[in-house]
């Protein structure tokens, strides 16, 4: 009986000691791990949407299609004048121009199912559905159903130490009079992200957009200013327009693994990888 009681006491002591060690380890872990950042209200949280704000000067909810009436310039962003490129970017551009001379196609990564990314996704010959809320504008290109969100709820860009860099970047907008001003940054440094044919984009890409609704709400005009200190000098400016589309809804468009197997041109010998 006495021996059994001693065993129970010893077992209890071991259990208490184990709990104490576990508690100490947890305390040490909690000291080593910084507190997670406070989560802001989502752009779709009712409490955020219903906050009191000045009325937006315009609502661009609708479907929009790049105005390619001047020609096929809607294929990519590039205005006629490309800024002075940095040496590495110039090498890409020269290789592109050489490929054209030889009747070839240089680094057509979009054709290989890589995301077009901003700004090219905005100028593809596919409609873009835009849904405007007080807190954000959701832009969904029919092309690969690529999604871009412009936040309007007063938030800042995400801390660069935690942001997940992407092909479409992170867009934050504010109203200035009758103009929506959008700053987009936090782009990926992926070598498949291009601004124009033979002009790469980097994680230093910054885009300022001044968006206006004109022509009685039938035309969207965006003046873009691009900087990318890794790839060109100074500012690269261009203006594009989009027409409102009322007779088409965007559908599901995907670059499926077997798509290019049946499009010989994407695997043709004319491609320079």
């Amino acid at each position, binding site marked *: 009986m006495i021996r059994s009681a001693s065993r129970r006491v010893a077992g209890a002591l071991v259990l208490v000691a184990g709990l104490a060690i576990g508690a100490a380890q947890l305390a040490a872990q909690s000291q080593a791990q910084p507190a997670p950042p406070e989560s802001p209200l989502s752009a779709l949280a009712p409490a955020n949407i219903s906050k009191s704000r000045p009325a937006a000067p315009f609502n661009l909810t609708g479907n929009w299609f790049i*105005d*390619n009436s001047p020609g096929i310039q809607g294929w990519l962003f590039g205005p006629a004048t490309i800024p002075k490129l940095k040496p590495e970017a110039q090498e890409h551009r020269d290789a592109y121009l050489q490929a054209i001379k030889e009747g*070839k196609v240089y680094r057509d990564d979009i054709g290989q199912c890589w995301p077009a990314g901003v700004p090219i996704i905005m100028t593809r*010959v596919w409609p873009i559905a835009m849904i405007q809320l007080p807190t954000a504008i959701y832009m969904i290109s029919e092309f690969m159903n690529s999604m871009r969100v412009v936040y309007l709820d007063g938030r800042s860009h995400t801390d660069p130490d935690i942001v997940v860099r992407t092909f479409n970047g992170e867009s934050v907008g504010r109203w200035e009079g009758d103009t929506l001003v959008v700053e987009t940054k936090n782009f990926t440094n992926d070598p498949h992200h291009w601004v124009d044919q033979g002009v790469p984009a980097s994680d230093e890409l910054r885009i300022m957009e001044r968006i206006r609704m004109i022509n009685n709400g039938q035309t969207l005009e965006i003046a873009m200013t691009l900087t990318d200190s890794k790839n060109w000098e100074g500012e690269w400016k261009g203006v594009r327009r989009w027409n409102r589309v009322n007779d088409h809804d965007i559908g599901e468009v995907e670059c499926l693994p077997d*798509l290019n197997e*049946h499009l*010989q*041109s994407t695997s043709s010998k004319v491609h320079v990888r």
Partner: protein
Amino acid sequence: MKSVLFGAVAVALACAVPVLAHHSPAAFDRSKEVKLVGTVKDFRWQNPHTWIEVLVPDEKGKEVLWGVELTSPTYLIRAGWKSNTIKPGDKVTVVVNPVRSGEPAGIFRSLTLADGRVLTERPARLGTPDSK
């Protein structure tokens, strides 16, 4: 126009119509047209491209598989196409702008069905009067 069936070659100055492509259009030679007279092997009605595979006999009678890339159904529907407009086994004549490499592939210009109907595609354009 180059007719694969008869081997005749001619150059046509095709107007550059924006295509609804997911890839660069630079692979195609828009200054040339090739006429394919053959039999449909497959027809896929899908985004981002509809495509046709056509078996075309060459000068020696050997069948060559040609790949033909079309725009998306959005613009084909507006030009009168349906998902069952053609099916495997149909005899067709297809005109394409060929790829520059000389491989048996091209981008679509027109289709003539066995009953003589001719189908084209609409330019990739929305939101303008001519896109209705």
